[in-house]
């Protein structure tokens, strides 16, 4: 069993049509104690949030005895692209991630998700790659100074021509070459790229900092709504000694209307798994 919800980390993106407090209460109702915090509207405005608001947010989380395993600032849907050739966009994107790091530090969150951004499909990958490496490198330095680790998540191929599978992810890790930068595994994105957690563990081992354990491959689905082998994935993670949390990054238009049911269903599926070694995340 996954012990008392210690390792299951619901994520607030599922509750984007509800207030953040509503989400936090739902987490408590489901006997979970860890969350993955999505930085997006209307819950958290990374660009605008003030220190006072961050302090208030910290209280709202801690007063419910919750802890945050990972901050995931929205980048895919927002005008954020660290590999952009447009100077204003790349500057905005770097400032956005730097601010997100400050927010993570103030909230005491040990880990933040990052992505590579993307170049255009009809232009040289090398140049966009270089721009991504430059900015990621600076983010890594700042993270190191703040004592925060980073988890690089591959995007889907239709979103990016840079880091979109385990091979390109390995290349980026080699180019940045810092122990601060690890791997985030999203089981649905991996499956859509024809890969499984096993591929990731084989290649990256303990550099995997965070797992989003979700059904797919067509979307970020609640368990049972897709076709992925959840039990096998859970077992593979444990076999490899993964002690981190399992983020529930569930988003689908249909889920937003009734998130309570979707969350309960997914947590139920995870709890029915015989996953051992429940790390005290």
């Amino acid at each position, binding site marked *: 069993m996954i012990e008392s919800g210690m390792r299951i980390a619901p994520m607030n993106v599922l509750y984007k049509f509800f207030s953040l407090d509503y989400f936090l209460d739902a987490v408590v109702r489901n006997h979970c104690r860890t969350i993955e915090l999505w930085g997006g509207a209307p819950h958290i405005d990374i660009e605008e949030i003030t220190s006072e608001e961050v302090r208030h947010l910290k209280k709202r989380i801690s007063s419910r005895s919750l802890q945050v395993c990972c901050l995931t600032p929205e980048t895919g849907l927002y*005008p954020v692209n660290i590999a952009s050739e447009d100077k204003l966009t790349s500057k905005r994107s770097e400032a956005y991630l730097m601010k997100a790091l400050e927010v993570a530090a103030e909230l005491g969150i040990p880990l933040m998700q990052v992505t590579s951004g993307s170049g255009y499909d009809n232009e040289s990958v090398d140049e966009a790659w270089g721009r991504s490496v430059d900015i990621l490198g600076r983010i890594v330095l700042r993270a190191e100074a703040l004592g925060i680790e980073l988890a690089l998540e591959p995007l889907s191929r239709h979103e990016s021509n840079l880091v979109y599978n385990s091979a390109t992810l390995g290349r980026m890790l080699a180019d940045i070459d810092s122990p601060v930068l690890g791997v985030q595994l999203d089981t649905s994105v991996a499956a859509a790229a024809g890969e499984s957690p096993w591929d990731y563990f084989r290649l990256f081992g303990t550099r995997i900092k965070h797992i989003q354990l979700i059904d797919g491959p067509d979307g970020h689905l609640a368990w049972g709504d897709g076709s992925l082998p959840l039990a096998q994935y859970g077992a593979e993670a444990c076999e490899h000694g993964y002690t981190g949390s399992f983020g529930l990054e569930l988003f689908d238009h249909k889920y937003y209307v009734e998130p309570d049911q979707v969350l309960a269903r997914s947590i139920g599926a995870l709890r029915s798994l015989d996953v051992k070694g429940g790390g005290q995340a």
Partner: protein
Amino acid sequence: MKNVSVMNYNYQRYPLEYFLDSMNRLNVEAIELWAAEPHLYVEDLPASRLAQIRREIVSRGLKVICFTPEQCAYPVNIAARDERLRNRSISYFKKSLEVAAELESPLLLVVPGSGFYNEPKEEGFKRSAESLRILGEEAEKYGIHIVMETRSKYGTNLVNTRADLRKLVDEVNSPFVDPMLDTVPMFTEGEDVRAWLDDFGDRLRHVHFCDGDGKGGSNMAVGDGVFPMQQYWELLNREYNGYLTLELVVNRYYLEPEQEVQKCLDRLRAMQ
């Protein structure tokens, strides 16, 4: 086919100029400009880049028939309970009006936003109408019409049906804030083009002419879904004078965007 316009949404893996060239190759003159990174994000758009974009459009003999800043994926919501988010959204659309005017677009697309799903619908509706009144006054100064579409219940709790849209149009009560039709949420709500034409008549200023899966999925290429597109096509060509935009939102249309639009155009020609 002069009334068919094409949106750059599914060209987001390519530069804006590639999209504009593609329109020339496809003999399309009217474009609906989706304004988002990486093509043009109104918050990061210096005057020099805007002037350049204008030149790129004009020099290719193209015209912008509707300006559509990203507002579903981005943190934009004119009905938001959070005042900062709401104010920022209003200012985003004011900037968008400036850009639309510079690009000589007669229309600006604004979705009514959404309230929280656990608060009374009326409160979000009231905030949306207030924001739209402000934007309507601003639009009037430019002579630009704001067009509003419905969304399915998976995207908003405010304006899902044409009755909701009628109520909002009446509430805002501005000659510069008008209804438009998107065939996807229309179908999802069990409505049809006939009813929309009957309800809104000449006030219907714009149409997103899309196919769909009928299950609440996103906007698809004509002929890829289950909608009676031939029937919609004939009806709209007979009784509606504005543009019909091909808006391809599903991600499988991103990698070979020109091929996908070509496919739609071929299918529309076959319907003639």
